[in-house]
Structure formats: structure tokens, C-alpha cells
């Protein structure tokens, strides 16, 4: 390993020519000029246009489907029933029939002629009201229940007791056992699961499912001894991804069993299997392509129902290309919800601010499946805890991963509760956080997380001038009040499986193929920076091909695993290719291959730098056989790691008459190990703050209880922040010693976690009372100031 680390490890700071530098994203020119082709922009020859008939009911049985009218309409080339008679609908907007026609107007006319009869069933869309008097679930544990327990770091003896007492609903296969082992589930727990009685899952009419209470330490004693106890209720609603490029694809059959799909996806290499399964064709017959994607945020990992039916209706239309891109209302209704989370929280502390006890009763919905508890208390591991979560099954729509799944919710609830404790103690929340910083170190802390948080908090405090601008809650007599708030957050990282093929040709050209995707995070730029830095070439000299499943397979871009995956596979490929090139030309330079280096477009002898050869001349010696190297992740050497910390601070002004919150300033200080592409990394953090502002102040999937329908499936009332709504923004990346040596760690999730909590805390600090629920709209601020309860909806 040590040798591999020496061989593949990242260059020392003084040797980095591109890594960590501010370099403009390589696909910038295409994007700013409108030339970049997204899936929505692809226009295949003879392409047909799809239109989908959707259920207006949130819960219903389909009684009949009559497509005859549509089939007779001239210009209609295919009709495919997605959900036929007898199917059960679980959310409004669900897909029922798709038609393909020569143009969009014709497709719309055809869709209007389709008659679907429904038998409406009772629906439930209220995730906001606190579930009361719900009996704790005592039935057998599902896989989801267990996942929840693991996710919440439940103690082994509690898990084992529950497994033994309640049984489980599934059989533990050897693969599953191995997977658990890989994920650090203890042998005792795995053994208990293997020995547990397998029972039928319980069915219930209640939307509520109360999960097993989780206890750590002795919360009863801790609350009894606490010198101060603060209680509060906090939460945030279901929000939607609102990708600007909606979900969708263009499907065509190149012959009777070969599918070609242009699809908007975060998972180019991972879709063929899904298509194969849905369409009953060999996986190798599926070709997936995507050049650019207009946003995913965690919602575009699957082919989805629409991916499958687009292929089905194409088949009905004789294999012609059919485009189905979701319309905006459908995008907001069916293409992804972030689970809501609400909690009643009690926190116990000593007078000096030492946190001693946590109790939370939480609830929230992740759609029809109910959904799990966010991690609480978040990051700050209070020694004594009692937690109880109730999952609420609703017809709001299916949940999907949303940047840093569950973390923003857990962070909001925890950091809000801690700020309330500080206020009750009349203590600066920054001091409270620093006082308890040791609680933030994970159990197996390998890199002094607590120190990172402390350093980040101090830097953030400096950048926002905390000392000067912070004041105890709700001071001042002006109509407009200013406040500061903070939050800290974490995320894992590591790298997904990645394969990078790099070839060097005799004309000096370099070509990279990788089945990855660039979500706008700068993946292309980062890959080229790594390759360019390793080969001593400017990035313009390297051709990069990604976005196709015919290139070496790469993981989906989720969980902040892309940079770890592609940077290390690219580094390994480039090192191996470089090694081959060195071996080839070492004799000509009268040197040993390992005494060569590639710098500034030439190959030179390290011990005698005057002996060198231009890159072009070096490659000319390759002859007809290009160099090819396949770099993998995981692979030799330890190039990446996991686990980062970040701190966010917000400065807001609140007009206490109108209840309008204005962002003055926000600071995000983030660690992500070794930064490959500084400019796009910073952009990720800026973006995370801005997204957080929208989520905190504006976003909400508003459901009508009677209709079971979304009331704001448009961008008028599903509101995003504009350029004038975000205030001053400052990003500070933690770099250098203590960070760089960890290797790159992904940034897609971590900086998105803290902003909601930081802004919410700043509002509480400004106006002197907590606005418990997001979004912090004028009505809620006004109600909070009046001391009313904030259940405005």
C-alpha cells in the first residue's frame, strides 16, 4: 500500500500545476452560448412527441381506460397504457396512459380524447399535524425499520432485543449479511437477524407508524439533573427538487431488441440494467447517452416509470424516437419530494452550557412509504438521549434522495433546539457550540473533526463579524431587526466505483473515456485537471468523453461520491499511462523511467532537467500502438477519504411589521479534503447556500387536503430565490495541511445541510422568538411575533 500511495498519491503542493487552481469550467463556452445539448434539446430524426394522461386523484383504483378516440386521431403513432384497469394510484399526477404523435399539439389533442374512469379512494396528505396517541409499532421489523435503526446509531443490544422480540419480515441472504458487514453492522446483530423468526409484515389502515423508541445513556436522570431545560417544536415541509430540466428521455429502438435512450440522468452507467429489467431485453442491448443534465439533486438515478413507458410507446410506434419530458406540473408533482420532518424537542443543559440530555418526538413523511427519522441530535452527540419517530404515510408523492438525504432536516431541528437552549441560558450560541465541541467528534475520529469545526466556526465568525454583530435575542426597538445564526454539518463522501480509460496516441493526443456525468458540479473540469496535472499537459490538449454507457462504467453521481471516484480512477489511469510512456522514451533520454517527469508539455529527466523532450516528440515514438490504461476506483493506493465538517453563519434583517426576512450575508466555511477544481468547488458551496435560502424562506409543496392535489405545481407559487434575494455570500474552503492529505472528498451534499438551520436561527435571534416551521414566510413571522401557534396551514 505504501508503494501504491507513493506511486499514485496526489502531488505535493509545490508540484501541483492544475490541482486546486481556479480554472474555468471546460464546458462553459458551450453552455453560455446555448450550444450545449441537454436531453430536452435532442432532436432525433423522425422524433415523435409524447403526452401523458395523469390521474387527478391522489388515491384511486382505475376502473377503465378507453384509448380508442386517441388511436383514431390522425398523427397519433402509438398509445401505451401505463396503468390499466385495476391499478391503484397513490398520488395525484401519477402516469396512466402515454400517447406518441407527430407533434406536441397533436399529442395533446390525443391525450384529451383518452377516457379514464377512476374509483376514488380515501387519501391522506397531512404530514404536518402531530400524530397523537399512536401505539408503538410492535410488528415484525422491515428492512426499512432496521435501516432506520442503523442510521440512528441505535445501540446493538437495543437492535438485538427488538429483532428477537418482534421478528423480521425478510430473510437475511448471504449477500445481505455481507453488505451489512461491509457497512460496519456488528456480527452480533447480523447473527441475531439470521436467527430471527421471519413473519408476515403487518398491514394497517393508519397512516402512522411509530418506530421503536431509541434510548442512549440515562435521559430521565439527565433531565432531572439538568439546570435548564428548553423545549421547542421545529420542522420543515416536503419540498421538491424542481430540476430546471425536467425528468425525461427520448427512446428509440434501433432494432427489435436494441434500445437507444437519451435520458436526463445522474447515473449514465447504471441505467442499462434497469431498462433491461423493465423491458425484458439483454442489458448489453441498451445504449444510454447524455451530454448535459439540467439539474438532478438526487432525483435522477433511475429510469423511472416514464423511462420505461417512453421505450414502450416507442415500440408501439415502430421503434421511432419518442420524446417524453415531464411538464413542469408533473415534475413538481411526481418527480421527487424531499421528506418533511417535524419534531418536539426537549434539551437539558447545565448553566455553563454543557449539553446533557436530548429528547425528540419526531414525525414526517416520505410519501406512501412513510419515511424515516432524520439523524438527531445532529452532529452534536449529546450523551443522554430518548428518541421516538413516527413515519407518516401520505399521498403527497414519492420521496427521492435530495442532496444530503435527511441531514438538512436533522440539522435544522437540532441546531434550532440548541440555539433555543443558548437563548434560554442567555448565552451566545457560538459559545455554546464551542463549549460542546468535543461532542461533535465521531466515535472513531481519525482526523480531529471537533478541531475542524472549531477552526471553521472561528473563521466563519470572523468573516461575518460575529463578535460585533451578534446580540442577545430580539433586542432593539427598530421595526427592522437584525440577527445572526449558525449551524454546523457533516457528510461522508468516499468515492463510487469508477473506471477511467486513458489513451495516449502517437500524434500526442490524449483521450479519456469515462461513463460518468457532469451535473454542473464540474466533473468534466475535475477529470481534466487531474489528467492534465498528471501528464503535465494543459487541459485543452486532452479530449474527454463522458455521458455514455459505452464508455467504462462509472457510478451514479450521488452522495458526494463522484469526485472521489473519478479523480482517483483518472489519477490511476494517467499515472499508469505516463509510466508506459516513460518506459518507452527513457532510453532516448538516457534515463531510468522513474527518473522522468511530465511537466509543462514535456518529459524531462528529474536529475537533469535540461535533458527533455516535448510531449509531441515523446508520443511520436509510440508508433502505431497507442498507450491505453484503465484506472479504477477502488484501486491501488489510498487516494480519497470520507467525512467532512462545515460551518454556516447567516446574517438577516427582519421587518417585524411585514414579517419579511432579508438576507444580509451568509458565510459558509467548508472542508472537503484536497480540492481538485477550486472554482467549481466554490460554486458548489455558493449554490448550496442559495438553495438553502430558497428552502428556508420560500419552498413548500402545498397540498390540498380535500383534493389531495398539489396547489402550486408551477414556478409562480413553488417559489425559488431570485438574484436579488440572496444577500452577500462568502465561501471559505479549508485547504492546506490537515486537509489536503486526505485526498478529495465530495461537495454535493455537505454545504447544503447547514443553511436552513443557520437562517432560522438568525431569524430567531433577530425577532426574539422562534419561527418553528419552514418556510419562514411573512405569515409565520407575523404569527410568531404575535405569540400565536404557527400552524397556518
Amino acid at each position, binding site marked *: 500500500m505504501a508503494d501504491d500511495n507513493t506511486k499514485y498519491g496526489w502531488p505535493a503542493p509545490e508540484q501541483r500545476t492544475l490541482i486546486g487552481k481556479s480554472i474555468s469550467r471546460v464546458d462553459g463556452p458551450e453552455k*453560455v452560448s446555448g450550444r450545449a445539448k441537454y436531453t430536452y434539446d435532442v*432532436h432525433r430524426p423522425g422524433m415523435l412527441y409524447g403526452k401523458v394522461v395523469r390521474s387527478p386523484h391522489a388515491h384511486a383504483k382505475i376502473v377503465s381506460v378507453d384509448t380508442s378516440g386517441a388511436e383514431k386521431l390522425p398523427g397519433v403513432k402509438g398509445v401505451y397504457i401505463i396503468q390499466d384497469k385495476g391499478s391503484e394510484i397513490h398520488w395525484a399526477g401519477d402516469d396512466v396512459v402515454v400517447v406518441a404523435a407527430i407533434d406536441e399539439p397533436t399529442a395533446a389533442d390525443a391525450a384529451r380524447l383518452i377516457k379514464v374512469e377512476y374509483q376514488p379512494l380515501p387519501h391522506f396528505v397531512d404530514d404536518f399535524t402531530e400524530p397523537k396517541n399512536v401505539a408503538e409499532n410492535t410488528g415484525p421489523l422491515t428492512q426499512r425499520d432496521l435501516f432506520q435503526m442503523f442510521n440512528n446509531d441505535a445501540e446493538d443490544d437495543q437492535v438485538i432485543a427488538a429483532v428477537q422480540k418482534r421478528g423480521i419480515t425478510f430473510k437475511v441472504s448471504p449477500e445481505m449479511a455481507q453488505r451489512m458487514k461491509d457497512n460496519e453492522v456488528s456480527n452480533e446483530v447480523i447473527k441475531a437477524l439470521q436467527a430471527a423468526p421471519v413473519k408476515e409484515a403487518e398491514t394497517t389502515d393508519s397512516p402512522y407508524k411509530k418506530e421503536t423508541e431509541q434510548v442512549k445513556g440515562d435521559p430521565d436522570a439527565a433531565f432531572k439533573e439538568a439546570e435548564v431545560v428548553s423545549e421547542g417544536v421545529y420542522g420543515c415541509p416536503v419540498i421538491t427538487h424542481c430540476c430546471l430540466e425536467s425528468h425525461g428521455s427520448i427512446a428509440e429502438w434501433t432494432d427489435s431488441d436494441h434500445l437507444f435512450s437519451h435520458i436526463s440522468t445522474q447515473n449514465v452507467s447504471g441505467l442499462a440494467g434497469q431498462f433491461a429489467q423493465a423491458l425484458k431485453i439483454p442489458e448489453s442491448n441498451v445504449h444510454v447517452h447524455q451530454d448535459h443534465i439540467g439539474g438532478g439533486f438526487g432525483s435522477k438515478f433511475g429510469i423511472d416509470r416514464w423511462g420505461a413507458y417512453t421505450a414502450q410507446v416507442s415500440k408501439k410506434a415502430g421503434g421511432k424516437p419518442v420524446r417524453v419530458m415531464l411538464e413542469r406540473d408533473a415534475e413538481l408533482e411526481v418527480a421527487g419530494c424531499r421528506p418533511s420532518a417535524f419534531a418536539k424537542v426537549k434539551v437539558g443543559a447545565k448553566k455553563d452550557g454543557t449539553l446533557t440530555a436530548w429528547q425528540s418526538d419526531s414525525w414526517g413523511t416520505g410519501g406512501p412509504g412513510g419515511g424515516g427519522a432524520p439523524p438527531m441530535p445532529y452532529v452534536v452527540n449529546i450523551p443522554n438521549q430518548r428518541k421516538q419517530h413516527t413515519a407518516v404515510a401520505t399521498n403527497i408523492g414519492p420521496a427521492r434522495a435530495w442532496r444530503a438525504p435527511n441531514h438538512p432536516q436533522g440539522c435544522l431541528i437540532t441546531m434550532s433546539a440548541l440555539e433555543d437552549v443558548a437563548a434560554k441560558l442567555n448565552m451566545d450560541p457560538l459559545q455554546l457550540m464551542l463549549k460542546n465541541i468535543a461532542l461533535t467528534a465521531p466515535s472513531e475520529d481519525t482526523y480531529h473533526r471537533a478541531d475542524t469545526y472549531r477552526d471553521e466556526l472561528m473563521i466563519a465568525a470572523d468573516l461575518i463579524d460575529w463578535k460585533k454583530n451578534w446580540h442577545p435575542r430580539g433586542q432593539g426597538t427598530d421595526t427592522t431587526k437584525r440577527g445572526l445564526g449558525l449551524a454546523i454539518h457533516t457528510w461522508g463522501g468516499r468515492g463510487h466505483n469508477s473506471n477511467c480509460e486513458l489513451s495516449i496516441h502517437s500524434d500526442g493526443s490524449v483521450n479519456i473515456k469515462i461513463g460518468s456525468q457532469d451535473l454542473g458540479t464540474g466533473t468534466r473540469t475535475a477529470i481534466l485537471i487531474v489528467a492534465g496535472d498528471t501528464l503535465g499537459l494543459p487541459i485543452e490538449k486532452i479530449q474527454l468523453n463522458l455521458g455514455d454507457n459505452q464508455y467504462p462504467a462509472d457510478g451514479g453521481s450521488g452522495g458526494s461520491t463522484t469526485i472521489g471516484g473519478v479523480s482517483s480512477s483518472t489519477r490511476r489511469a494517467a499515472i499508469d499511462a505516463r509510466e508506459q510512456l516513460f518506459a518507452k522514451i527513457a532510453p532516448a533520454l538516457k534515463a531510468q523511467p522513474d527518473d522522468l517527469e511530465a511537466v509543462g508539455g514535456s518529459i524531462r529527466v528529474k536529475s537533469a532537467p535540461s535533458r527533455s523532450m516535448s510531449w509531441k516528440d515523446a508520443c511520436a515514438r509510440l508508433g502505431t500502438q497507442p498507450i491505453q490504461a484503465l484506472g479504477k476506483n477502488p484501486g491501488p493506493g489510498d487516494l480519497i477519504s470520507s467525512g467532512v465538517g462545515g460551518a454556516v453563519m447567516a446574517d438577516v434583517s427582519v421587518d417585524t411589521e411585514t414579517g419579511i426576512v432579508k438576507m444580509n450575508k451568509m458565510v459558509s466555511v467548508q472542508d472537503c479534503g484536497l480540492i481538485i477544481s477550486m472554482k467549481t468547488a466554490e460554486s458548489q458551496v455558493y449554490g448550496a*447556500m442559495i438553495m438553502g435560502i430558497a428552502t428556508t424562506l420560500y419552498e413548500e409543496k402545498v397540498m390540498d387536503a380535500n383534493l389531495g392535489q398539489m396547489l402550486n405545481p408551477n414556478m409562480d407559487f413553488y417559489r425559488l430565490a431570485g438574484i436579488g434575494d440572496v444577500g452577500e455570500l462568502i465561501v471559505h474552503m479549508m485547504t492546506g495541511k490537515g486537509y489536503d492529505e486526505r485526498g478529495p472528498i465530495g461537495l454535493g451534499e455537505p454545504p447544503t445541510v447547514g443553511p436552513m438551520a443557520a437562517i432560522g436561527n438568525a431569524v430567531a435571534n433577530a425577532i426574539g422568538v422562534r419561527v418553528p416551521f419552514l418556510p419562514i414566510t411573512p405569515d409565520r413571522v407575523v404569527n410568531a411575533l404575535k405569540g400565536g401557534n404557527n400552524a397556518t396551514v
Partner: protein
Amino acid sequence: MDDLPEKPAKHEQGDKPKKSKSSSSSGVSRRDFLKISGVSAAVPLISHVGALAMAEGEPAIHGPGKAPVSLNVNGKKLSAQLEPRVTLLDALRDQFELTGAKRVCDRGTCGACTVLMDGKAVYSCSVLAIDAQNAQITTVEGLGEPGHLHPIQQAFIDNDAQQCGFCTPGFVVATKAFLDQHSNPTPEQIKHGLGGNFCRCGTYAGMRLAVMQAAKTKGA
């Protein structure tokens, strides 16, 4: 003079009451027409009106089927047969493969479809193609291309004012219209002047810098 782009209002004033009493050249007064359409409500209204000759020449009536539509886009004349219900955005994208303008909200809110019509930023999703025929239309493709980028486009790159890039063309075009009117903008003017475009990835920090840079480049 921007207040009065056409004839002085005095004319209109004098014209109004007299004209509104005149009858159509076909001899059917509007009153009569109303009666006609009243008794034949079951028949689509359209069929008569098209047949009726109206005052001062017949008004043009197109559709509902396809009609010839000719657009002037980026200095080129582009023609197609389109139903009147086709929007300018869809015509640009699906007929002429100018896909820089994006379809996002499709309801005149998000700004991703922004193009210039006679130099002014408009939401092309909310303009009918048939109604855009007399305008000079500029799309993001008409501002510059890789290798020959417009200073605004270059400024967006330099300041990384984009991530996924789906809102970017709309923002670039909106910025062009904005800077044409505000050559030396204040931050307040930027807030107001670019308030009709939304970005989901969150690239406003770079955009603000890009707008300022482009303003300076232009002035130089």
C-alpha cells in the same frame, strides 16, 4: 419621444364615436352579426366570422390548422407551417433546432426561455410564433458562439456564473437586454433588472460578478 411612438392621440379622440357606428362593407352590421351568431350558437362561431367581410377590409384569420409562419431569427429568415397555438419557444426549439432557449416552467415565470424581440427581453414561451413574425428575434445562439463569445458570455464563464447551465442561456440574454439599458448598473438595478430569471443550482453570486464584468468590458 419614447412616449409617443405613433400618431398623436388627437386623431384617435376625434375618430372614435363616429367610426364605431359605421357598418361593415358587406352590409351586415355588427348588431346583425351578433344576432346571427346568437341564433346559431351550436355551430362553431368561427365558421361565420371567417366568412364575414368586416369594415375596412377583412381582418386576417388563420388556423386552427397550420399556417405559414416566417420568423426573423438572429438575422436569418426561418419559415415553417405551424398551427397558431405553437409558441415562439417551441417553434425555435422543435422546428428550427435553436435549443438555447429552454422550456422550464412554460408559463412565463422562470426566464429560461428568454429571447430578445426587437432588443427587448421576452419570455418566448408566452409569445405565439405566429405573433412574432414582424419582430427581429435574437436568441442566445445569435449573441456569440464558442470561439467568438459575446463579452457577457465570457463574463459568465470567467465568474463561473453557471452550474448545470440550464438557466444560463436565459440569463445571458436577459443580461444583454439589461445592460443595453443600464450600461453602468448598480447592485439594486441588477436585483430588479434580472428578477425575471431563476436558477436552481444557485449561481447568483457568480452572475452578479459576471454582470459587473460585462458592463465594464462593454464600456472599455
